[in-house]
């Protein structure tokens, strides 16, 4: 498969723009300094207490995905630094650019027109950070445990040993169906336990993207908006889930609140 690349159309070369990282609130004295995409100097655009963190747009010739990977890491780095400096930030996703020379003015206009909404969003995330929780399920281990511990399935299995030919085959199918349903029910129960526990503690967002890793496939992928003081309580819920053989929890953070803006 050909490696996907993209290069900017001819019209883009020489086009200027303002690359946006996040919005924060606060004092820009001393100035906020950071290195952004392609090492570009990051600066602050202010309006009435609100601050947009930006830099000049990097050269528009995009050569390969590895370079964009570096840009994404730089983006996340800048937003992280801004969060350390200003406390609450509203991060932009990757690639938000205002094309043209007067980006600073346009951003200021936008800060003015969205002032109320931005202040409210900042209040929502103030003093909190985003944390990611993923639960992985090892199908092999969970199946083995079910076969070993579930009496109904043990009974069905024994029954099957005495059958022959066509009936044995049908019985096998039935047994597989029961196992599959029991495993699905167990996974759902695990998710519900996690979700109930966490949503009593904080705001939760269920992610649409699932995946898999060494521990197995994901059965839960959620983002949580937490205060520092709540981390311990969440950790205790996650330990209960992780303690179960065949189930693994991955707990990442703190993140800027990408999922809660």
């Amino acid at each position, binding site marked *: 498969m050909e490696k996907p690349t993209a290069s900017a159309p001819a019209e883009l070369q020489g086009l200027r*723009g303002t690359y946006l990282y996040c919005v924060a609130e606060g004092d820009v004295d001393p100035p906020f300094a950071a290195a952004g995409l392609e090492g570009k100097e990051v600066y602050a655009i202010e309006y009435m207490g609100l601050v947009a963190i930006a830099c000049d747009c990097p050269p528009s010739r995009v050569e390969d*995905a590895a370079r964009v990977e570096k840009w994404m890491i730089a983006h996340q780095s800048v937003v992280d630094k801004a969060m350390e400096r200003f406390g609450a930030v509203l991060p932009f996703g990757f690639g938000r650019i205002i094309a043209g020379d007067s980006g600073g003015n346009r951003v200021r206009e936008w800060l003015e027109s969205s002032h109320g909404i931005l202040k409210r969003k900042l209040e929502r995330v103030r003093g909190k950070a985003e944390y990611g929780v993923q639960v992985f399920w090892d199908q092999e281990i969970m199946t083995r445990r079910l076969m070993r511990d579930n009496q109904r399935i043990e009974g069905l299995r024994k029954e099957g040993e005495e059958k022959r030919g066509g009936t044995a085959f049908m019985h096998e199918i039935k047994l597989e169906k029961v196992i599959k349903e029991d495993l699905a029910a167990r996974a759902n129960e695990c998710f519900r336990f996690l979700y109930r526990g966490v949503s009593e503690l904080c705001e939760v967002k269920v992610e649409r993207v699932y995946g898999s890793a060494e521990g197995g496939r994901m059965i839960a992928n959620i983002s949580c908006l937490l205060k520092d003081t709540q981390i311990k309580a969440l950790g205790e819920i996650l330990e209960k889930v992780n303690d179960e053989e065949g189930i693994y929890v991955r*707990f990442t953070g703190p993140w800027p609140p990408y999922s809660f803006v």
Partner: protein
Amino acid sequence: MEPTRDITLSDVLNRLLDKGLVINADIIITVAGIPLVCVALRAVVAGIETMLDYGMMEDWDRRIREGQVK
């Protein structure tokens, strides 16, 4: 259990793409009606998403873990 900062490229991508603050499209100045710079970046990002779909990201996952942001 404590949160870790040992993150993967997937973690970063899943947050940086399709999340974050929304801005009015009409303040993005366009050339011939299309925000060209955004389009160029999206094209590359779509390329990365395709590579993710095709499971070509293992090397990158490893690299980001080794030389991590923080």
